[in-house]
């Protein structure tokens, strides 16, 4: 039982981060029907920007750790949003009217470009967030000692996700996003500026990705220019499991993926962990071909 609870918390901590990144995939997909392959690299960019802000500028020296992390998160989310916006303008907007697959290749090109740009700017060597950034505090949960940092990361990802859910479902902008996702043509006729909506979506997604990047840096230390590939693939998988285009689906998919990984490694085999994960993914899609919570849109016939 102890072992089970330990692994449950391990899985949740990883799953929270997958879910945050998955949201970026799913929001863009919902509106544009585009798989943004460069999203994983925006996540990496966020981690590197966070490093520069926290460590290179030495922010912690001036205003204390808590405040500087808050400032850094705000700054990184802003910059990632900007990067996402530029990406959309440069690589996706010109392809809005063309066939979907050409946008996929453009996205792959953007991914290669971003990854190598990060390598050239920050160097091929990985960087490490300082390990003593936060004190190592352990909190007891269900009788198990759990590092505080993981609890904080998990809770903050939940808070962000709930905030996003409320934003999408309770505000006028959110309504415009939902309307554009269901039918862009009809949304335009209703007076919604779809271009504006797309721009907003392309800022929220990367901002969340950037946030996840900083979380990974603070939580695990090591960041590398190629880490977006693995995280991107996992988060994309999570978005698909949940039903791509559906926001609660992405959250559910992310957390579920984290749990499958943790329990697969714990009870079956560590070396086969990722194979088990993909196997479960295939099983889920065989039973539910459009994910657990499918997008609420009828497929055009």
């Amino acid at each position, binding site marked *: 039982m102890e*072992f089970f609870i*330990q*692994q449950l918390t*391990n*899985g949740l*901590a*990883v799953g929270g981060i997958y879910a945050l990144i998955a949201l970026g995939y799913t929001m863009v997909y919902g509106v544009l029907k585009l798989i943004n392959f460069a999203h994983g690299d925006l996540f990496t960019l966020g981690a590197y920007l966070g490093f520069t802000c926290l460590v290179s500028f030495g922010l912690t020296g001036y205003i204390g750790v808590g405040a500087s992390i808050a400032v850094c998160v705000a700054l990184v989310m802003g910059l990632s949003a900007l990067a996402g916006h530029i990406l959309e303008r440069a690589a996706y907007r010109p392809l809005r009217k063309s066939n979907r697959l050409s946008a996929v290749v453009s996205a792959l090109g953007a991914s290669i470009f971003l990854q190598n740009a990060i*390598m050239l700017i920050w*160097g*091929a*060597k*990985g*960087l*490490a967030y*300082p*390990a*003593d950034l936060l004190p*190592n505090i*352990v909190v007891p949960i269900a009788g198990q*000692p759990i*590092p505080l*940092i993981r609890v904080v990361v998990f809770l903050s990802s939940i808070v962000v996700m709930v905030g996003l859910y409320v934003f999408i479902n309770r505000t006028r902008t959110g309504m415009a996003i939902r309307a554009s996702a269901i039918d862009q043509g009809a949304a335009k006729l209703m007076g919604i500026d779809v271009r504006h909506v797309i721009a907003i979506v392309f800022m929220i997604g990367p901002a969340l990705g950037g946030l996840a990047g900083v979380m*990974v840096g603070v*939580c*695990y*230390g*090591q960041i*590398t220019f*190629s*880490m977006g590939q*693995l995280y991107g693939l996992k988060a994309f998988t999570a978005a698909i499991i949940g039903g791509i285009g559906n926001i609660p689906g992405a959250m559910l998919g992310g957390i579920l993926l984290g749990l499958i*990984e*943790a329990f697969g*490694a*714990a009870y079956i*085999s*560590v*070396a086969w*962990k*990722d194979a088990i994960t993909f196997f479960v993914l295939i099983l889920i899609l065989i039973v539910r071909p459009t994910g657990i919570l499918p997008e609420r849109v009828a497929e055009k016939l």
Partner: protein
Amino acid sequence: MKFIAAMVMMLGLILTAPLAWAADPVKIGVMAPVTGQWASEGQDMVNIVKLLAEEVNKNGGAGGHMIEIEVGDDGGDPKVASLAAQRLISSGVVAVIGTYGSAITEATQDIYADDDILQIGTGSTSIRLTEKGLPLFFRTCPRDDDQGKVMAREVAALGFKKAAILHDNSSYAKGLADEVRGIIKDSGVEEVFFDALTPGDRDYTTTLTKIKTKNPDVIIFTGYYPEAGMILRQKKEMGWDVAMIGGDATNNSALVDIAGNASAEGYYFISPPGPSDLTDPMSQAFLAEFRSRYNTEPSSVWSMMAGDAFKVLVAAVENVDKVSAESLAEYLHNDLKDFVGFTGPIAFNAKGDRVGDVYRLYQVDGEGRFVLGQ
């Protein structure tokens, strides 16, 4: 007028030709992962060799031969490497230094052998590379079985009784893990866990939680430094105080950056001496120059091995009558004894392996320094 000028030039060319021939330049290839996953290792390798070559050329070359360096990027990928090898051969190299990964070196061995090019591996420690009987293949790095023996010996000597062995399923780490696994059985150490993690992941607590239930008194990790650093850090966060020992791929200053001093303290690893342990005047002078040129330190010992490969090649070029892959190999096999390299004395046996015991036990101290154990 033009005709006369042309004639004069021709004459000049004819007259100087023998001189040019006497100082026939020697072309040496560096095959290194300049891009891709191991880009930082590859870029160090190239920088070191280029710097050394400049020095040699400034002092009149090797035995009168100017040294030209041709870089081939293997991308850390066997397919890219096979093309890089063909490109280096086409550019007329007589010998090639590299590369880092064993699987990458293996993909190019036959290509070089087919064209009679001498090759010196620098980070490729896989055993079988020198078991094929290739007469023109050498390496300045030691072999995995040497390391496995030393590691198993140290685990027993440090008094551990129950060992958990963890690798990362790369050919290097798996090979080393198998080697250690085979030996520790005989020295009375019980193996309680054997599995592979996924390199590139960030969160290894799941694996650590699983290992913890087996209650080992030491974790033997045979993979690379990023994962080792994160394991140390997460082990500390879990509040689990178990000893850990690793292999030479964790001999990298970034390990401590990732783990933090507190988590890294007490970590053991087996390795040839790293760049910071090279305290002899020659290495110190070179490292100082490297710093002033590139504003950084070579991050691991493997790129210094590329420097050693270059140095032995220069020694061979200086000492043979006619430069060819065969004559250089002949010299390296038979005449090179106790050559002073950055990483210690160098000599090669008949298989092309480096002779001598280069492995040492290190431990990380409270300030994150790597301290030689006794």
